Each structure stands twice: as structure tokens, then as C-alpha cells.
């Protein structure tokens, strides 16, 4: 027994630099176990850490569902849900109770096993991506403990791999529903998700070239100098890589403008048309959990993870800072959803293969050349200075054009005389 569990090694002591994962924190702060469990303390700490995550993380989609309804209402001049609880806070609870009481229909001629299995696969693998994301850190004594369940050495690679399994779940859902609409939706979704994995991977690659490690905690550790050390500002090409990653992430999660698989106007509800009750709720939870996960990855890779704006974890750092940054990105995703129309399937594929992938390759090339010219250490002022200057100038020019376009009226219509 002991040798078997010994395979897991000293899970609480896998560190990079000086940080220890969550299991280590639990071993530190919780009272010591009784003697006969002493040899399993690593394993139990690990299980408890996983348990905490499994308990807390699915609560995030509940908050996000309400947030989406309120944000969309504010954009559209409405008030959103206001009846249940003060300002509608308990709306998700009411939705959950309603979905629990619905009739559980299984299409008679579909594939029953696959129909039942599909939501579970999607939810499991959406939540599995949270295992390797560092959520925050605290200093206890002279050790730093990081809120990460498992500090894998191949962290980001594992996350990419796990997100790709979701495609299988979607195809299973569409096929087992025995409906032409669902099948169309699920096949479109599969094509879309598989294609957009490539720009995601390539833009992550251009970040990895700078930090030269796949370990998530290591990536965050390298951004601990303050605002200017965030990976997004290291080279101008990393800046572009962030936006490529963000757009591809929106496509991965099947949100507008890429939500053709579940487009309400066309396919009623796409691959989850035939699901009702709690199974449908699982799809919803998976979608919002996935959204949170890709935003968390974007924050970790580009926006400094749980590092603060100033060196140290004081301002906008630690767990609150991380959650704030991720929720901000989630808000931007919702904002984009309620502004833009939907892309057609061939335009979606066009965007991916003809625009995002060449730009990602260009980014990788650019980062490589930049590091060649300005030296491999991108934190050095010789390299960071020109990069910041280029980024600031480009953003300034773009924003000036945008604000001029918002208020200017250079239209081609006939001008209306004011008399």
C-alpha cells in the first residue's frame, strides 16, 4: 500500500523556486493527523485540496450566469432579473430549482448511453482544467504557499490537452440526440473548436519562448516585477499574441461572435436542443466554467497571474487580484457577446485559417527575431524599453481613431437639413 501511494511522491514539496502548492498549505495549517494515518498524510492532503476545488469551482458558473444576465440587461437599457432576492441576486438559485423539477426526457431512438454520458464528459473536462491554474498565494512564515492543486511541470500543455477532449463530448451530444438540427450544430462546433486550438497553441508558444518553461507557477514567478514585467508587455508581438489568444479563446468556448453551434436564431439550440432539466444545467455550467478557465489562463500567461501591479502582492495581487483580473476578462467576453453579430461558418473558418494562424506564426517569428536583436533577457531595459514605446504608440493611435469614429458622422447618406 505504502509503496503504491509512494508513487505520488512528496506531492506537497514539488516546488519551483520557493513556492509550495495547496496541499502543502493544508499540511501546514491543519492540525496533525492521528498516528495511524501519518503515512497517508500526503495523499489525504491532496484529496482534500481537490475536494476544496471541486466544491468551490462549480460555484463560479452560478455567479457568472447571473452576471451575464445583469450585464446584458445594463447594455440593453433594461434591469435584468429584479424579483428574486434583492436586485435579483438569487435568480440562479431559482433557475436551478426549476431545472431540477423538469421532466427528464431521453429521445427514444437516440443512443441512450451516449446521451447520458455526454454532459458528464463535458463538465468533467471543463473542470479538470482548473487543476493546474495558480489562483493566488500567501506568505506564511518564510514559505510562500500557492493556491494550486497540482503544480505540474507541463502545466500549460496539460490544460490544452484537457480542453480538447470537450469536442468529443459535444459530438456525442449531437449524435445521440437523433435530430438533424443537433447533428448540424455539433459537427459545426467540432470543426470550429478543433480549428481554433491551433491559434491558441501558437500564441501560447510565443509566450513560452520568452519564459522558457511550461510550468504555470514558473510563468507567474517570472512576472513578479510589477506592471511592466507582465508578459503582455515584453515584446510587441506578445501584445498581439494576447489578442489572438483571446479571440481564439472566445471561439473555443462557443460564444458569440462564434456561437453558430448554439445559435438561437438558426438551430433552435444546436447540440443541446434535446436536453432538458439538470442535464441542460450541466451544459450551462460547463460553458461558464470553460469561459472562466480560459480567462484564468489568459490572466496567468499574459496579465501576471496573481502578481500585483507593484512588486509584491499588495496591490491587485494574491487571490483577490487574480479573481478581479479574470472577472474583468469575463466581463469583456460578455461585452463582446452582446455587441457583435454572428459569423457564418465559412467566415469563421476563414478567420481562423487565413487570418489568425498566419498572424500567430508571424508572432512567433517576431518574438524570435526580437529576442535575437535585443537579447534573450526581455526584462532588460534595452529590450523592454522599445517594446513599451511601440505598444503605447500603437494603442494610442488606434484608440484615437476609435473615439473619433464613435462621435463623427461621415456617412454616405443624404444630409438632413435641420430646418
Amino acid at each position: 500500500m505504502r509503496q503504491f501511494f509512494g508513487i505520488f511522491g512528496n506531492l506537497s514539496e514539488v516546488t519551483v523556486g520557493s513556492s509550495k502548492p495547496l496541499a502543502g498549505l493544508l499540511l501546514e495549517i491543519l492540525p496533525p493527523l492521528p498516528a495511524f494515518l501519518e503515512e497517508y498524510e500526503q495523499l489525504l492532503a491532496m484529496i482534500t485540496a481537490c475536494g476544496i476545488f471541486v466544491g468551490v469551482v462549480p460555484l463560479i458558473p452560478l455567479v457568472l450566469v447571473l452576471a451575464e444576465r445583469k450585464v446584458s440587461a445594463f447594455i440593453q437599457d433594461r434591469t435584468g432579473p429584479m424579483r428574486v432576492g434583492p436586485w435579483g441576486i438569487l435568480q440562479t438559485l431559482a433557475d436551478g430549482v426549476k431545472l431540477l423539477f423538469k421532466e427528464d426526457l431521453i429521445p427514444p431512438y437516440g443512443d441512450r448511453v451516449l446521451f447520458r454520458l455526454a454532459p458528464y464528459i463535458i463538465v468533467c473536462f471543463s473542470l479538470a482544467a482548473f487543476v493546474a491554474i495558480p489562483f493566488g498565494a500567501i506568505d506564511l512564515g518564510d514559505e510562500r504557499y500557492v493556491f494550486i492543486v497540482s503544480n505540474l511541470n507541463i502545466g500549460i500543455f496539460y490544460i490544452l490537452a484537457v480542453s480538447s477532449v470537450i469536442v468529443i463530448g459535444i459530438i456525442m451530444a449531437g449524435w445521440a440526440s437523433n435530430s438533424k438540427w443537433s447533428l448540424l450544430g455539433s459537427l459545426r462546433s467540432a470543426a470550429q473548436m478543433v480549428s481554433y486550438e491551433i491559434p491558441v497553441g501558437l500564441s501560447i508558444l510565443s509566450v513560452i519562448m520568452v519564459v522558457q518553461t511550461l510550468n504555470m507557477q514558473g510563468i507567474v514567478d517570472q512576472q513578479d516585477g510589477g506592471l511592466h514585467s507582465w508578459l503582455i508587455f515584453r515584446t510587441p508581438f506578445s501584445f498581439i499574441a494576447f489578442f489572438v489568444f483571446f479571440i481564439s479563446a472566445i471561439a473555443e468556448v462557443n460564444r458569440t461572435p462564434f456561437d453558430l453551434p448554439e445559435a438561437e436564431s438558426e438551430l433552435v439550440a444546436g447540440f443541446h436542443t434535446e436536453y432538458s432539466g439538470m442535464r441542460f444545467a450541466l451544459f450551462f455550467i460547463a460553458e461558464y466554467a470553460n469561459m472562466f478557465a480560459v480567462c484564468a489562463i489568459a490572466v496567468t500567461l499574459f496579465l501576471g497571474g496573481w502578481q500585483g501591479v507593484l512588486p509584491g502582492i499588495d496591490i491587485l495581487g494574491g487571490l483577490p487580484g487574480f479573481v478581479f483580473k479574470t472577472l474583468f476578462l469575463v466581463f469583456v467576453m460578455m461585452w463582446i457577446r452582446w455587441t457583435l453579430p454572428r459569423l457564418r461558418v465559412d467566415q469563421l473558418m476563414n478567420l481562423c485559417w487565413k487570418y489568425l494562424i498566419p498572424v500567430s506564426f508571424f508572432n512567433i517569428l517576431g518574438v524570435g527575431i526580437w529576442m535575437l536583436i535585443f537579447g534573450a533577457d526581455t526584462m532588460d531595459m534595452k529590450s523592454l524599453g522599445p517594446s513599451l514605446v511601440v505598444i503605447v504608440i500603437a494603442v494610442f493611435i488606434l484608440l484615437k481613431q476609435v473615439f473619433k469614429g464613435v462621435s463623427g458622422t461621415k456617412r454616405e447618406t443624404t444630409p438632413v437639413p435641420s430646418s
Partner: protein
Amino acid sequence: MATEESKFIEVQPFSDEMVLSMGPQHPSTHGVLKLELRLDGEIVREAIPHIGYLHRCFEKHAENLSYPQIIPFTDRMDYISAMNQNWGFCLAVEKMMAADEKFSGVPERAEYLRVLVGELNRIASHLLSFGTYGMDIGAFTPFLYAFRDREEILLLFEEICGARLTYNYIRIGGVSRDMPPNWLDHVKNFIDYFEPKVDEYNTLLTENKIFIARTVKVAVLDEDMAINYGITGPNLRGAGKKWDLRKDEPYSIYDRFDFDVPIGHDIPRIGAVLGDCWNRYKVRMDEMKESVRIIRQILNQKIPEGPIMAQYKAVRPPAGEIFDRSEAPRGELGFYIVSDGSVKPVRLKAKSPCFTALSALQELSKGLMVADIIAIIGSIDIVMGEIDR
């Protein structure tokens, strides 16, 4: 070696078409329209519209009603622009009654009020078509914005005639109620509030690259095809032909106002082609501005005082038949009335502009994708109440 022509039969291999029914209940067909789509993967081989789910026997019913009683039923044909439907019907009946010497013409004040509410309703109708088109393409927000502005117009109508959707306001020989004391100020407030909004909606939706990519060069309805099908209104103007009944055959007092007729253009900057979905949609946005212009001219002139209803003994048009048409927001609305001198018509037929527009759908949609079908239906702006009557 066989001496017959061939022992083997040539079989052309073809993949089975999938028949998909975009059934009567669908979130984005405007009303109850069933489209039978024959698909080859994503490409549409044929799209056959099946109508009649909203047929209410309006024309047969009208044979049992007297002329003033028919007016509430014309409201329910194209319920979104009900004032223009009332007006079209009243124009036809008044033209028939002009031969009756007891019928004094429609008074001036009534004509001004008719034009005012007709143009306001045109704005409301185009707002709704803009909002629902955005929603079909996937942008949910312009729909809410359009309805917020439409709400203001409906409040204006509620003050003047008491109802929000089925007005029964324009009667044979005039209008039914005079306007309340501050109504013109409310109209002016609304026009001042609304005019910059059209520019905002253009910036939000019309110039959006994704929207442009969905609608340019899709389903090009060129001028010849439109005329052959009998399509009129913004659909024809989007194809480049400058034809508007308010300018070319003016009825009522439209010849006193100065306004342009917007048509579609070839715009290489965004790739728009004459007669595609984008141009038809853009014509509607421009028409809203022209309606605002007309309303401003009315507000600057003084509406003459006087009666709002013509003098006549009874609505008994002399025997005969007439076909008269007017410019509804969706095209030319025509009424063909056969009368035999009694209070009830012998036969009433309404020519609906959306019916002819929908008939072009079958030819327009060959070779396009399923997502494009939605874009086409939204751009030709159909209302099933008018198609089925």
C-alpha cells in the same frame, strides 16, 4: 460484344438531399412561415416557402361588412405599420366616392395629420425591421434599442388615437380624432431625440465588419428580376431603381414636401453590390432619415385649422371598381374594390407587397447556405399578417 446500345445503365451518383423544415415555429422567420429546405450539407438546393398559417379570411369577411367596419380589419393585416394600411384602404374608397357629389373632399387638416402619423409609422416599422434583422444576424442589442425608440412612437400614437398597435384612426374622409393640445411638442421632442440615434445605429450595426461580411453580395436581387417579380418598396430601391409612389405618383399632400428617395449603391469600400442584402437594409435606414425630414417640415409649417372629417351622408360608393395603391413601408400596398352602390363591397382584394417579395425567395436562395437564408428573410422584411391576410 453486345449489339444493344449498352448492357450497363449509367447511374449518376448524387448524394441524398436532406430535407429540413424550418417549421412554422422558428425564432427568426418573421411570423409563421414554413420553409422547406432541401440541403446538400450546408448548401441550399431549394427553399420552398409554405404560407397560409395566418390566413384569417379577411377578404371574404370584408364582403359582409360595411366600409367603415372594414377599417379595423385592415389594421390587422400588416400590424406593424397599421396606419399606412388604413390609409391605403381609405384612399381607394375616397377615390370611388369622389364621383358622389355629396362627398366633400378630405379637409386640409386631416391630410396633414394623415401624413404625420403615416411617416411616424414608417419610422416605427423600419425600426422594427432594423432590430429584428440585427437579432437574426446575431447582434441582440440593436433589437432592444429599436424597441426603446419604438416605444416612444407608440406613446405618441396612444395620445392621439387611443391605441398602440391597431389604430383605426384614418377613416374614410378624414381622421377620427383631433390631436390633443401638446401633441406637436411631444412629436418635436421625439424627433430631436431620435435623429442622432439613426447615426448611432449606423455606427453600431451598419458599419460593423462582421455584419457587412454577413450581408454584402448575398442574394443579389437586381433590378430586372425585381421588376419581373413585381417587387416594390425598399427592396426595389435597394436594387437601384428610383421608384417611390410618394414622388412619382403623389397622393395626398406629398407633393408639398421636399425629400429625397434613397436608393442602393455599389460601394467598393465595403464591397456592397447593387441589390444585395446590405443595400436593401441601408435603404431602410436612410428612409428613416427622410421621414424625419418630412415630419420636421410639417412641424415648421402651421397645420391649418378646420374640420378633420369630410361631409357626406353615407359611405355608398357608386357602382364600379377601382384599384388604388399607396406607399406602405414594405412596398406598394394596393386595394381593388368592386362596389355595386350599397354599403358593403362586393369584392375586396388587398395586394400585399410582402407577398411578391417572398415569392422571390425561392430563386434568390439557390446555392446559398442556411445562415444566408436567415439573412435574406430579414432583409426583405416580411410580415406574415400581410402575406396571409
